[in-house]
């Protein structure tokens, strides 16, 4: 071709020039563990389902959630949400209201009648689950998903364990509980109610390949309180159990609850609802040392429950109690002062913790019992091969969420055991630290949601106290999630690269680095809001 004057070469594109050769560090996309997921005892990954909820894909969000936990509507009411305590957004303004969104999804699923997946194949292996509390039901659900035949036996006439016979209805309405349990039963779990398992050896002889013991901690602890014959003393677990069965005991007008945990608070609030004009909690330490959850304490006080801090019950009589004032020593331990006071009380409710009845394991070999709980290894197997245990019956924090997590983990371990394979749990990816985020990019969204959450809190007698979010507020709250350590396709890396070295693969497919041209400047990593790009030394 004839070239113009002084032109000797054909025009070419700079694409021929592979500037990637300049690089000393390369960007790589990573998926880290968000702190919320790290903190969730039920192994939920809130970032994943919040992401789906952000654009209103509620069914997808719910389906992702229930892979880990079949009880979102229950969780959204009773979980103490350690995810929110860990949430990175709390360093920016306020934690994402993960639990409130979870509840919304759970309630929405019940309204829509969404069903849990039914297993495609069956393995023909049979597992017995003892106890239809959250731990047992979670295990049953997961074992069923893995294709096993599951039978759940429970002493009580209705399933749910402490979710039904402990947690009061004003915090967890029974229609919600029933709906989420029915969904599990519908996957083909066989539920045998009013059936106590007394003898594990006999049960095993029925042909079960493995057993999961999830019997909880049913017995209220009795501490020694010097008391006159005529004093009326009940324990909190029995009280709540009887109320749940529609057979409330007579407590009288003035009720004193002794203890400082959540059960004490529930007992005191229940006493109020049964008509007590005075409901007083007597607790040995101060409020900041009280194990009861702050929000529940606040609700109790709003409802007129009174607390006598730094006090113990020294003696119980008919109609009145003698209370001793305590003082905290340097180590924070309460010490008696010898100063006494009289308190009028028609009854005394003891809320001093629960113990496990493990008599069903009598005669089973190779078990280790510690402080009334049965010891298990990291795969939730007891010392006896094929007998697994979890939830309140093993030494751990006693919450519904921990129970659900135990059930799910134990199900995986039982499955591996039945298949005679080793259980390989994938290593958790490194934690997405707050410092690795570029929070500039998150719109300021702290307080708008608060008043609506606050306004949703209303005391309505025996009805549920805390109300749910509407769809709009739930989506708004979901959108506050910063997607810590997980790409949420904000296009920032694609935009900020001065070398067009980030390839956008399309919605849902994320991005790829074009190492032919990436010079390794690191802007993409620095400007990634969610901290999902790492710069690593080039190894060439």
């Amino acid at each position: 071709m004839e070239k113009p004057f002084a032109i000797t070469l054909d025009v070419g594109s700079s694409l021929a020039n592979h500037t990637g050769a300049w690089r000393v560090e390369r960007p790589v996309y990573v998926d880290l563990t968000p702190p919320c997921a790290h903190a969730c005892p039920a192994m939920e990954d809130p970032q994943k389902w919040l992401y789906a909820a952000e654009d209103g894909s509620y069914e997808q969000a719910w389906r992702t959630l229930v892979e880990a936990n079949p009880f979102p509507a229950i969780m959204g009411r009773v979980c103490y949400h350690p995810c929110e305590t860990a949430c990175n957004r709390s360093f920016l303004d306020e934690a994402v209201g993960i639990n409130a969104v979870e509840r919304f999804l759970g309630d929405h699923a019940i309204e829509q009648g969404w069903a849990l997946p039914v297993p495609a194949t069956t393995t023909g292996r049979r597992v017995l689950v003892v106890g239809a509390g959250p731990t047992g039901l979670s295990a049953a659900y997961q074992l069923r998903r893995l294709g096993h035949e599951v039978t759940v036996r429970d002493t009580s006439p209705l399933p749910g364990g402490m979710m039904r016979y402990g947690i009061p209805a004003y915090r967890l309405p029974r229609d919600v509980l029933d709906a989420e349990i029915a969904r599990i039963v519908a996957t083909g779990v066989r539920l045998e109610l009013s059936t106590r398992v007394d003898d594990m050896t006999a049960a095993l002889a029925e042909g079960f390949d493995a057993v999961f013991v999830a019997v909880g901690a049913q017995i209220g602890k009795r501490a020694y309180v010097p008391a006159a014959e005529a004093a009326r003393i009940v324990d909190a677990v029995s009280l709540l159990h009887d109320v749940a069965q529609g057979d409330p005991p007579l407590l009288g007008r003035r009720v004193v609850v002794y203890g400082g945990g959540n059960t004490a608070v529930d007992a005191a609030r229940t006493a109020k609802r049964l008509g007590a004009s005075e409901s007083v909690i007597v607790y040995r330490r101060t409020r900041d040392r009280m194990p009861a959850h702050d929000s529940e304490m606040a609700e109790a006080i709003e409802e007129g429950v009174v607390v006598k801090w730094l006090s113990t019950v020294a003696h119980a009589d008919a109609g009145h109690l003698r209370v001793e004032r305590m003082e905290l020593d340097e180590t924070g331990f309460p010490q008696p002062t010898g100063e006494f006071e009289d308190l009028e009380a028609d009854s005394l409710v003891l809320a001093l913790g629960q113990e496990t009845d493990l008599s069903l394991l009598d005669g089973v070999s190779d078990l280790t019992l510690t402080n009334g709980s049965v010891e298990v290894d990291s795969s939730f197997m007891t010392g006896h091969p094929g007998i697994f245990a979890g939830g309140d019956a093993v030494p751990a924090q006693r919450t519904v969420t921990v129970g659900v997590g135990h059930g799910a983990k134990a199900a995986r371990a039982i499955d591996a055991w039945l298949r005679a394979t080793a259980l390989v749990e994938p290593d958790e990816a490194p934690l997405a630290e707050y410092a690795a985020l570029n929070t500039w990019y998150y719109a300021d969204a702290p307080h708008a949601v608060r008043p609506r959450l606050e306004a949703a809190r209303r005391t309505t007698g025996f009805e549920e106290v805390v109300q749910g979010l509407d769809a709009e507020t739930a989506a708004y709250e979901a959108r506050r999630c910063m997607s810590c350590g997980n790409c949420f396709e904000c296009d920032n890396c694609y935009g900020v690269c001065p070398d067009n070295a980030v390839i956008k693969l399309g919605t849902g497919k994320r991005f790829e680095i074009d190492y032919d041209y990436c010079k390794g400047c690191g802007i993409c990593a620095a400007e990634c809001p969610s901290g999902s790009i790492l710069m690593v030394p080039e190894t060439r």
Partner: protein
Amino acid sequence: MSSTGVKFYQVGSFAVGNRLLDPELRSAQSEQGRANSLTSGHRACQGCGEALGARYVLDAAMRAAQGRMVTVNATGCLEVFSTPYPETSWRVAWLHSLFGNAPAVATGVAAGLRATGKDDVRVVAQGGDGATVDIGFACLSGMFERNDDVLYICYDNGGYMNTGVQRSGATPPAARTTTTQAVGDEPGNVFGQGKDVPRIAVAHEIPYVATATVADLRDLEAKVDKAMGMHGARYLHVLVPCPLGWGSASKDTVKIARLATESGHFPVFEAERGEVTSVRKIRHQVPVEEYLTLQGRYKHLFSPVRRDDVIDRLQAMADRNIARYGLVEEVL
């Protein structure tokens, strides 16, 4: 900020993209099929703000002009790193003449297009701060005065970077360049000289003048869109950090631009026909020191001895910008 009005969607309008936005509200940079006016393989330094800024601006202009556009480029890094003979990184119709005459060449191109009846083809001219505020200034002022139908973009990296970081009329006071060394009582560039060309452009009362940075893409694109929707002389002054000349880490290019605006050091505003019509408010105000410490060109203000006197003067300049443009939201 001219890019608000976006409902709160996790990242609002701060990030490049947002999967929850209506497609027509999305940025040009987030599009899979964006023009990529300046393509890969160019020889700009790692983390070059000018390369980034040029693609941001021209991709938005290309979208607005639906590809019917001619670009005129002054000499400078932007020209040298993109067109070593016989290669080019440009995927736009592109013309280079001299260091000092880009505005005049653009005027000629616009006149030529009009004369040949192609007045749907738009003209964009671009150059560095040296080309714009110093050597090409007479041509620029003439283009403004005649109200020629050209959008002129100045990529301000505060110096003659292409030839080895010499001072320009846009180099900020106290900054070290190779011709304003960090020596003597008043180290670095002097105070009181230099030109504020955005304000000078406003004084020409042309249809549109705006400033922007590579740290706020949505704002920048909105301004390009607005300018492309108008005719006559228009001027856009974009702050583009230069890792080489500023002695900064390549990864900090966008961050430094952000701190320039958040400290008030670089005011971001729009003006039409001589009047300031909008300003981009500071979102999280920072002391100017946060901006300075990331840059080697200000290192002499912090070591071997800290020069509070000089830092205070720079802070006073930022405060003056804040007062002049009302950059800080009034707390009612």
